């Protein structure tokens, strides 16, 4: 669906059911250069289990009006504008990679809005390799190749995948190509500049979950350990064989972990 936020059109998929703010909300946040389709194997599941699901495209990504937002803090404020605009209540945030930084900021700034946060494949910060930043600025096709090359584990590189006939890598490349040249580089710069993760994590009081990709090359174990260390009593799970694009590479395991955590901490009637 499309809706208006601050005079700009925002697109979000609602998982196949109309967004009903009388139900607890599950809001999914995508990572750098991606869009709502990243969460396709999770959003519909929750929408058909009595949750109000929202998977927005960040400004300047795929169907949402631009320009792309230049800081994680701005993304958190934009997310709050969405929550207010739709009067979304009892929000469970499910975030991947860059989305996790936004979730950290949002949950620490607007604790009254949030019931749970699930962090998938992230650290407290996301310092971006200079080579990747340069490529995103000057050679977007190379940057997309780097991100998908590092992002997907072997299952992705071998075009395996949970949906028969679908190639995760090729689908991701199509989405990311559509979001260059401006959105990807803006996202990466925002990630690189973000430095408030430690303070934000400490302020989050709602139940939190961290899902770790065992073969993550973009949010490696050390960075994830830092996140876990600074969150309050997180529920931690590791999916050993997955790369960074865990929600696509291991969707059944990821969905099962999200289901258990959200169903128990933010139940839908």
């Amino acid at each position, binding site marked *: 669906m499309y809706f208006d936020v601050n005079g700009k059109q925002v697109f979000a998929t609602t998982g196949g059911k109309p967004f009903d703010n009388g139900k607890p909300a599950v809001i999914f946040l995508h990572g750098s250069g991606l869009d709502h389709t990243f969460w396709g194997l999770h959003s519909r599941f929750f929408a058909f289990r009595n949750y109000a699901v929202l998977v927005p495209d960040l400004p300047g990504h795929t169907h949402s009006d631009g320009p792309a937002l230049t800081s994680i803090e701005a993304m958190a404020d934009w997310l709050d504008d969405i929550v207010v605009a739709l009067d979304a209540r009892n929000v469970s945030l499910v975030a991947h990679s860059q989305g996790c930084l936004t979730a950290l900021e949002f949950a620490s700034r607007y604790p009254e809005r949030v019931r749970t946060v699930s962090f998938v494949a992230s650290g407290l910060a996301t310092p971006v390799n200079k080579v990747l930043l340069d490529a995103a600025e000057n050679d977007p096709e190379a940057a997309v190749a780097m991100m998908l090359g590092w992002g997907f584990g072997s299952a992705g590189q*071998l075009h395996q995948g949970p949906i028969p*006939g679908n190639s995760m890598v090729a689908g991701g490349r199509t*989405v990311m190509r559509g979001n260059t040249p401006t959105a990807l580089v803006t996202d990466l710069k925002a990630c690189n500049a973000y430095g408030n993760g430690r303070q934000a994590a400490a302020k989050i009081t709602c139940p939190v979950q961290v899902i770790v990709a065992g073969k993550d090359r973009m949010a490696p174990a050390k960075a994830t350990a830092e996140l876990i260390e600074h969150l309050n009593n997180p529920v931690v799970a590791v999916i050993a064989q997955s790369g960074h694009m865990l929600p696509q590479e291991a969707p059944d395991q990821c969905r099962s972990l999200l289901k258990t955590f959200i169903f128990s901490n933010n139940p839908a009637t």
Partner: protein
Amino acid sequence: MSRFLNFDTLSLHAGQTVDAEHGARATPIYQTTSYVFPDTDTASSIFNLERGGHAYSRITNPTVGVLEQRIAALEDGSAAVCTSSGMAATFCAITAILGQGDHIVASTQMYGGNISLMKNTLPRFGITTTFVDPTDIDGFRTAIQANTKLIYGELIGNPGLDILDLEAIAKIGADHHVPFMVDATFNTPYLCRCFDYGANMTIHSVTKWMGGHGAAIGGVVVDGGNFDWGATDKYPTITEPYAPFSGINLWEEFGPSAFATRIRAEAMRDIGPSMSPMNAFLLLQGIETLSLRMDRHLSNTMALLDYLSNHKQVSWVNHPSLPSHSSHDLARKYLPKGAGSIISFGVEGGREAGKAFIENVELASHLANVGDAKTLIIHPATTTHSRIDAAALSAAGITEDMVRLSVGLEDVADITADFDNGFRAARQLAKQ
């Protein structure tokens, strides 16, 4: 693995997860109609497209799925759907987005089955086609109507071998928000990835070079994922709620694989032209050696072009690799490795001489197929294109004396020796 894998590696590995229970290195043949669900929630999730998984082999099958993902990888497409034949793939792809009152602009130079589908069968469903000479780019533009929803062509035209100017046609499609579908059977992704030049979907008869062995019939539709279905309201089957799946909006939910998902959700479910697991297995064996075979097809083709071009009993030879061919420059642009392994030529003496040639070769098989490992010959005017009228025959570049040759992988000296026998018989006929 931290980078994209190359073509030959993907030909061998893409799509396959090594069997966890037994460690089978080859892709197992899952010869089963259906699949046991672990619980009711999983079952309902699969039926509601909330998750991947298999329910019934008419719609998906693990062996077929490996083939689909392998072809998607080789084409650099976002998704692929295999079908029982190439014609089934074409029909399913067209009807996924077109219906009553819609219109296609298509090349005149296509496989006779494609022409017949568009000329005879689709009109019964209210879908009409305007055929355009593939070399007439302006003709494609002027043929576009308000109800045009598809541009269709073969990169290497059959059997005239004119090369479609992919970028020019794709631009016309983009200008009019009309997707461009290419039958890429003759080129395979090894010779040209059509999505790199703006095509939006490809069709293959994988029976041909992709399989290569002539042992299994099959087709595939590949979704390039690069068409913006939401930019126009012309494609409601993709962008509007689809009732059988709780009103799912495929464009919103599946984005770059929305078109392939429509084929899976509708054509495979409601019509059911599914590929058998056994055929998928056989076709996978062929694809493992695709580049090796194509290289040999191409080298044999060049040798035979030399042989035929210098043969006194050959009145003309047609192949885009020849500088005299009108599509030579386009062939160099789109098919730098080589312009396929189909040659057409005329035998001095016309129809009867051609008939004598075909009936007196022994190694080359006289049959209605192309892209086999074995060399094949046929007389198109009386066989593959016999169901189209004289005007369409002429438009397709087919003459009475034309012999179509699908160059195989045999030792080329044996092929030319075989042809010598055919030409000898044609010569003796002329003396009588």
